[in-house]
């Protein structure tokens, strides 16, 4: 170090601290569940936990990018339903279709809707919540319209298609593999590419971005496009996993995804969000869904408990952080 830094080097950055708190919280919950039901930490249960959380996790990545630009996307549940329905209809019509073509189809359809939201938000300056709320209604309605109210059932889907979600690669379920790939690409993208960093810059201060000539609109558009693509991917995975496509698929799912992001430390006021935090947020939600049935909680209590745990998680976080900040101040030589 050439110079003595004025600001003392902190042991942990605030975000890292936050994530540590969340991690401890997750471990505490995990331990509590494990004591009630030893099955919890078995390989098979952990596999099913991650398999069931993979789609949520994939969506959370896209939602994080959108939130980072100070936006929000409420249309993803509807896009999942629509892309799922359309790919399922395609697969039912052309059973020989290679699975990756189905995936591609889903991603492209999703990106079309993402692009529409993106144009509304980035080009036409419609507030994100309004644009995507409108899209949500339109896309959900269209899903019923294209399907004529019918479902596509598992017998109509080829085994290859269903294997997208049930097959394994290196002994790991495809969904988990896909999620891992998405996370690695996203981590690289937001940390090591110019465009990725610029998305953060735009969210951190849109006016500054404009004044320093970053392509603000294009970057925001891109965030919605990626979100749309990931929703399309999720739509295909969803339908392949549950082997059924119906009009009300994933209704209200956007709130789960947003909850995962915010639990993971993504700020709705833009500019902030880290991959590791996102993983923790997603896993916490996954555990809540997985663990409560395991420890024989009455179904009538499950909801209340889930809400309390989420609230407890965020409040503990705040308290831990306040405490450490107070300690840091105390250490500062004044």
């Amino acid at each position, binding site marked *: 170090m050439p110079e003595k830094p004025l600001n003392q080097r902190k042991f942990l950055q605030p975000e890292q601290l936050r994530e540590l708190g969340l991690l401890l919280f997750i471990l505490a919950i995990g331990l509590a569940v494990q004591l009630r039901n030893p099955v919890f930490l078995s390989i098979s249960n952990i596999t099913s936990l991650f398999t069931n959380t993979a789609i949520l996790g994939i969506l959370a990545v896209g939602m994080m990018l959108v939130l980072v630009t100070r936006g929000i996307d409420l249309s993803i549940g509807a896009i999942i339903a629509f892309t799922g329905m359309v790919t399922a209809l395609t697969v039912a019509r052309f059973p020989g279709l290679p699975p990756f073509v189905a995936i591609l189809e889903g991603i492209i359809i999703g990106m079309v809707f993402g692009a529409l939201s993106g144009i509304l938000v980035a080009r036409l300056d419609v507030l994100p919540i309004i644009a995507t709320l409108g899209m949500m*209604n339109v896309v959900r309605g269209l899903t*019923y319209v294209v399907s004529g109210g019918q479902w596509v059932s598992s017998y109509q889907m080829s085994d290859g298609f269903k294997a997208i979600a049930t097959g394994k690669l290196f002994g790991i379920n495809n969904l988990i593999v896909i999620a891992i790939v998405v996370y690695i690409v996203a981590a690289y993208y937001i940390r090591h590419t110019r465009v990725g960093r610029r998305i953060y810059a735009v969210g951190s201060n849109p006016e500054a971005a404009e004044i320093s000539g970053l392509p603000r609109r294009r970057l925001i558009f891109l965030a919605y496009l990626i979100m749309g693509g990931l929703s399309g991917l999720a739509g295909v995975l969803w339908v392949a996993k549950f082997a059924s496509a119906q009009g009300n698929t994933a209704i209200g799912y956007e709130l789960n995804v947003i909850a995962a992001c915010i*639990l993971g430390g993504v700020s709705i006021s833009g500019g902030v969000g880290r991959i590791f935090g996102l993983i923790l947020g997603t896993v916490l939600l996954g555990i809540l869904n997985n663990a409560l049935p395991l420890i024989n909680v009455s179904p*009538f209590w499950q909801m209340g408990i889930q*809400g309390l745990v989420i609230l407890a998680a965020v409040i503990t976080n705040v308290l831990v952080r306040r405490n450490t900040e107070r300690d840091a101040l105390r250490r500062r030589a004044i």
Partner: protein
Amino acid sequence: MSDVRKISIEKEWSWKGFFLQWEWLLVLVLIVVFLVNSLISPYFLTLSSLIQTPSTFLDKAFIVFPMTMVIILGRIDISVGSTVALSAVVMAVSYNAGVPMPVAMIICLLVGTIGGGLNGLLLTQFKELSHVIVTLASMIIYRGIAYIILGDQASGGFPDWYSFLGWGSIAGIPFILIVFAVAAVIFGLVLHKTRFGRSVYGMGFNSTTCEYSGLRTDRVTLIVFTLAGLMSAVTALFLTSRMGSTRPNVATGYELEVITMVALGGVSTSGGIGKIGGPILAVFIIGYLSYGMGLANIQAPVVLVVIGLLLIVSVLAMKFRVSPKKRKLAM
């Protein structure tokens, strides 16, 4: 200083500015809705139908008032649907436990108020927390409590007079419409004519400045969220009356419907902008629109698409009506 420049205190009135207000666009939309409806269904344009219809869609509209305030504050409250369910359930259960109905109704309002108040309290005590996560958590918790209380049961059997709330009329005008009008006047005055309303708008733009200027920002936040709870309970009263009984899963998804109305009403979710008239018009636009399409037996998905498009198109229409010269902050 010697050369005191005179600064005008007369507000310039311009007809253009007056008619470029969002509300006029909504009035126009409402008229179009009326025209189209009377074309597609012969049952629509009768006086009794027009006056009676609002009772079919006004129940959730009570939440539109406080939600307008919440959104002007730059926040959002997604727990309102659950608050409706919880206060309805507690009311029904206490009535069936022997509490007289009027008292049970007061309990209902109390539960809603407390529910909203808790949101406000959490938000003011833990400023680091995002309003989305707080109200998301309480959305889950409040409905969770309703399930804990009532499980898979429904609860009802209210006295006969109670159904008057949702179904009764005074001089041919639905009671619910009268209450709605009164609430609209009260909320309109509070928001546009009082100190409190001014504070709400100020905080929507810049709550730091408001704090430095000595406004009781915490109190304003608390009151606004408490009002959201209270009005959710009012909705619970009317909704329960209309259904004659209640269950823990009533009013699911109300939050997004209410937010849609407020957004269509021209209230900006980034805070500070919007008037009470817009959301009120939006309530009637969406209400009459879906009622009219229902009269023509158009299926629900199509109605969804139409409402979604209406939201997007009207926002765009407004954009292109006023000159798109955007205000740039002085750098």
